[in-house]
């Protein structure tokens, strides 16, 4: 028994010692840089929210709000209340996600204080096809959502993108990515409206 243990230690001591040493190195690096990484995430979110509702102050009013994405998938999201410089409510922002063409698309969606209109969206992360699907970050597509009603949106392949209503004209050559963004809105708008109204009623 002792002979076997000695054999195993002889064979694997370098691996065991190295694992501890490398693990310690990663732990130290992670401890040193993790606050900065978290701060970067917060800064990015703040910048995106400021693009959607400029000059507002943001306060997180709900954390880990569960949203049913269908097919048994549940996502968690934080809700931020935007307060205008005059002290009035300027709207709400929340993170949203869904499956895109290549990978998960993560958005920040802003809605007005009355929960009647969409104020817009920004893309937090996406790996959509360069030159096609990645145009969901462009103004042509995003402008169609600004002041659109906070109801079920539908995607059309042809139409006037200047008319602001619940019909969103798809990006030519990127129907899957366009559909993905519209689906994210449709998954989140109703559920978030209910959750925010419940919070308001408290």
């Amino acid at each position, binding site marked *: 028994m002792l002979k076997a243990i000695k054999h195993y230690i002889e064979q694997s001591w*370098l*691996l065991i010692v190295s694992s501890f040493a490398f693990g310690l190195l*990663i732990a130290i690096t992670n401890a040193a840089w*993790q606050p900065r*990484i978290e701060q*970067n995430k917060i800064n990015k979110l703040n910048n995106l929210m400021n693009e959607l509702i400029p000059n507002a102050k943001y306060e997180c009013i709900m954390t880990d709000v569960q949203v049913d994405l269908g097919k048994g998938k549940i996502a968690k999201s934080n809700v931020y209340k935007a307060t205008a410089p005059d002290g009035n409510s300027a709207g709400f922002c929340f993170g949203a996600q869904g499956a895109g063409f290549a990978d998960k698309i993560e958005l920040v969606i802003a809605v007005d204080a009355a929960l009647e209109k969409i104020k817009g969206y920004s893309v937090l992360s996406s790996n959509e096809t*360069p*030159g096609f699907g990645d145009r969901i970050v462009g103004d042509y597509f995003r402008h169609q959502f600004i002041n659109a009603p906070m109801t079920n949106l539908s995607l059309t392949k042809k139409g006037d993108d200047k008319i602001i209503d619940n019909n969103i004209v798809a990006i030519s050559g990127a129907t899957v990515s366009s559909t993905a963004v519209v689906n994210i809105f449709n998954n989140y708008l109703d559920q978030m409206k209910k959750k925010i109204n419940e919070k308001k009623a408290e």
Partner: protein
Amino acid sequence: MENKAPSISKVFAAGLWQENPVLRLLLGMCPTLAVTTAVKPALTMGLSVIFVLFCSNIVVSLMRNLLKPHLRILMFTLAIATFVTIADLFLRAFQPEMSAVLGPYVPLIIVNCIIICRAEACASKNGLFISIIDAIGMGIGFTVVLCILGGIRELLATGMIFEIKVMPSFFVPWAAMRMPVGAFITLGLILGLVNFVTGKKT
């Protein structure tokens, strides 16, 4: 018979041309094709690979006399994974935008054949100095090719280099150059040119 130690200049030059990982050994094709949409991500990937190659070659060279044959690949992977994690944390902390652009390709350096190849072919058989020179030569060779590929693709896809407009106003950008097809065509043409120059027939 005594093994003749390789000369420093030959070891360094090998990575740049005779044994260039991309042009001659066709290693590391995944990042070569995926992150060369522009010069900046290509350069960042190249510098990350230089860092990982440099550190892993040092560690492998220092422990080469202690390595058990059946555990050596495990030890290489352990060392490489550690330095890749550090590189990934560094980018997320100090270059968050570039980290988002490179996405999963930084963690994927762990399985980059160039690094395992140099650990096995050079660092596990040579002293510290030769291993460091080999890492720098191979790393620079890899980075230069990535930057050339990135430069060609960025120029033709957007008319810009380092996000500075260089093409005349009548130039029509080739969106395909930002897509995988652009990567394959550009790499294929460069490899063909290299083979033509070196007179390689098979």
